C-alpha cells in the first residue's frame, strides 16, 4: 500500500474503474440497496442528487457520477472494522443519529460494517470472537477506521477494552497492521483531541503519532459526514487513498481554508466586525474575527458543504470557528471566543501563569524603558559629578 501523495488522476482511467466496479458490484446488491433506499423514504432521484453532490465534493468530473452511485451500492466486499478508542462517540453520533437518516448514513450501514462497538447488537465474549474472526477472515482486505485517541503513557494502561483488558494501544497496533487501509475519523484519532490537551495525563496521541503507521486523517470535532463518506467512497472507487495534505488529510476536503470560502469573508475585508455578541453587527451577519473566529487558521470544507444535511455550520449560526480540524486545537486555538492575539502564552517556569503576547511585550518594553530611564539618570548624575570633580581639581 503506497500512501504517497500523488495527485495524478490521469492514470486512473475510467475503463479501469469500470472494470474494478464490475468485479466488486453485483446487480443483486444494487437492487437490495435501492430497495433499502425506498423503504427509508428516498427516491432514486434523491439518491442521484446526492451522488452528484458527493462527486462534486470529491472534485471528480461529472462522468464519475454514475460510478460513484455504483460504488455507493457496494455491499459485503469491503469489510470495515471500526475501533473506538478514547473518545466521546461524537463522530459516530453526528454521523448516524440525524433527525432523519441521511443517505450518507444509510450507505454507511450498507457497507459491511463488520465491527462497530456502538452499532453492534452483540456484546461481551461474542463480540471479541467476532472481531478476531473478522480480522482473520478479511486479513489484508478490510478497512480499519479508528475513532478516538490512543493513551500511550504507562504502556497504554489508561484505556482497556473487552473482557481480557487489552489496552487500546495494543489493539490498534494489532488490527491496523492487518488492514488494507487505515482511516482516522475525528480529531482525536488524527491528532489526539481533547484527551491530548494540556496537561495530557494519559499521554494520549493520534494514531499516527502513537504507533507510527501511515493513515488517512479525517479530523474535525466531529468531521462532517460528507468528509467521512467521501473518503470511504474514494477508496471504494479507486482502490487507493485520496491525495493528502501534509497533515495526512484528504486534499479534496481539507485543501482550502475556512476563511477563504467563508460567507462572511467580504465583511472581513470591509472592516465590518461583530464587536460583542448580539450587537448590530452580529444581527447583520458581519465577520466574527474579533469574536475569536479561527477560520483564518483552519483548513476544512465546512463553508461549502456544512453540517446536518447542509442545514448550517458554526459561522453561519453566528459563532466563530474554533479550528477543530487542526492539530492540538484545544491548546492552540484557545480562548475560542477571543482573537488569536489574546491567546495565553505559558511563561516558562511560571507555574502555569499565562500572559498574552501583548502583555509580555508591554512588560518587556516597560522594563526596557525603566532601565533606560535609570541608566540615563545615572549617566547624567555621573557626568555632572565628574565635571564638578574636574573643576575642583583645577
Amino acid at each position, binding site marked *: 500500500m503506497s500512501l504517497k501523495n500523488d495527485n495524478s488522476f490521469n492514470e486512473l482511467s475510467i475503463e479501469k474503474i469500470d472494470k474494478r466496479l464490475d468485479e466488486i458490484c453485483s446487480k443483486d446488491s444494487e437492487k437490495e440497496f435501492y430497495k433499502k433506499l425506498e423503504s427509508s423514504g428516498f427516491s432514486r432521484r434523491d439518491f442521484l442528487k446526492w451522488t452528484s453532490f458527493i462527486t462534486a465534493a470529491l472534485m471528480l468530473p461529472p462522468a464519475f457520477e454514475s460510478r460513484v452511485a455504483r460504488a455507493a451500492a457496494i455491499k459485503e466486499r469491503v469489510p470495515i472494522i471500526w475501533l473506538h478508542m478514547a473518545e466521546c462517540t461524537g463522530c459516530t453520533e453526528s454521523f448516524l443519529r440525524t433527525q432523519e437518516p441521511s443517505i450518507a448514513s444509510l450507505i454507511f450501514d450498507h457497507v459491511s460494517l463488520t465491527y462497530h462497538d456502538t452499532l453492534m447488537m452483540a456484546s461481551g465474549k461474542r463480540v471479541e470472537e467476532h472481531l478476531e474472526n473478522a480480522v482473520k477472515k478479511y486479513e489484508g482486505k478490510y478497512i480499519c477506521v479508528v475513532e478516538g485517541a490512543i493513551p500511550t503513557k504507562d504502556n497504554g494502561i489508561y484505556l482497556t477494552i473487552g473482557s481480557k483488558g487489552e489496552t487500546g494501544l495494543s489493539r490498534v497496533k494489532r488490527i491496523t497492521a492487518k488492514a488494507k487501509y487505515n482511516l482516522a475519523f475525528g480529531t482525536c484519532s488524527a491528532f489526539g483531541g481533547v484527551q491530548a490537551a494540556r496537561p495530557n495525563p494519559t499521554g494520549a496521541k493520534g494514531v499516527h503519532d502513537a504507533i507510527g503507521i501511515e493513515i488517512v486523517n479525517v479530523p474535525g470535532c466531529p468531521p462532517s459526514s460528507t468528509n467521512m463518506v467521501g473518503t470511504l467512497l474514494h477508496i471504494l472507487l479507486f482502490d487507493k487513498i485520496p491525495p493528502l*495534505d501534509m497533515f495526512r488529510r484528504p*486534499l479534496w476536503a481539507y*485543501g*482550502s481554508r475556512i476563511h477563504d470560502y467563508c460567507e462572511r469573508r467580504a465583511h472581513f475585508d*470591509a472592516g*465590518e466586525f461583530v464587536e460583542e455578541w448580539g450587537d448590530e453587527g452580529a444581527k447583520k451577519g458581519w465577520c466574527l474575527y474579533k469574536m475569536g473566529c479561527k477560520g483564518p487558521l483552519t483548513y476544512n470544507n465546512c463553508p461549502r458543504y456544512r453540517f446536518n444535511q447542509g442545514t448550517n455550520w458554526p459561522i453561519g449560526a453566528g459563532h466563530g470557528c474554533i479550528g477543530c480540524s487542526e492539530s*492540538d486545537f484545544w491548546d492552540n486555538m484557545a480562548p475560542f471566543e477571543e482573537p488569536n492575539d489574546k491567546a495565553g502564552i505559558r511563561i516558562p517556569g511560571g507555574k502555569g501563569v499565562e500572559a498574552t503576547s*501583548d502583555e509580555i511585550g508591554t512588560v518587556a518594553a516597560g522594563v*526596557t524603558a525603566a532601565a533606560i530611564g535609570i541608566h540615563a539618570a545615572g549617566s547624567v548624575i555621573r*557626568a555632572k559629578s565628574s565635571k564638578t570633580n574636574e573643576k575642583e581639581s583645577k
Partner: protein
Amino acid sequence: MSEYKKVYEWTVAIRLLHWITFIAIAVLTFTGFYIASPFWFVHIPGTKEAYNTFSMANIRLIHFISAYIFIFAIILRFYLAFFSRVDADWKEFMFRWFNIKEMISTLKNYLTFKPYGIKGLKSKYNPVQSLAYLAFMLVSVLQILTGIILYTMNDNSIRSVSIVQKIFFPMITSFGGYANIRITHHILTWFFIIFFIAHIYMVIAHESGEKNGSSASMFSGYKYEKK
C-alpha cells in the same frame, strides 16, 4: 576649541537600507497590530455603506507591500555584510561580541553609567552593539519566515499544497501548528519595538557623550572626530 575632522562613516547603501528598514518596520508594526485586532477604521453599523470601508483589505495590502520591502532590505543587508566591496562588515556587524576583552571594557562603561567614550575599540560596532544587531538579524529572519508561512496559507488549494508551505512544513510542526506560528509572529513584533526604544536611547547617549555627530551621520554619512 579643538579642531574636528570629517570621517566618512556610512556609505550611501547602508544609509538607504537603514531608513528603508526603519520605515518598513514602522509600517509593519502598526499594520500588524491592526490585522491582529482591528481597532481603527472599522465600520460602525449604520454610518456608511460597506463599499466605503475596505479597511482590512487595504491595510493587509500595505502590510504585505512593506513586508516585501523589509524582506529585500534584510537580504540586501546580509549581502552587503558578506559580499560588499566596502561594507563587508559581517565580522564586526554580527560577531564582534566574540572579542571578550572589548566586551568587558564596553560593559564596564555601560554599567558605570558612561555609555560612550569606550577605550580601545577598534571596530565600527562595539561588542554589545554587534550582539544586538545579530539578534536583530536573526529575529528579522524568523519574523520573515513566520510571516511568509501566514502569507501563503491561502495558497494551499484543493489541487495541491503550495510549495512554500511544503518547504516550511517542518517549521510549522515544530512550532505546533499555525496558531503558534501566528503568536510567534505577534510576539516578535515586540522585539522590534524594544529594539527601537533601546536603539534611540543609545544613539542619544553616544551623541551627547562623544559629541561627534553620530546621529547626523546616518543622514550625511560623516562623523566628526577630534584631530
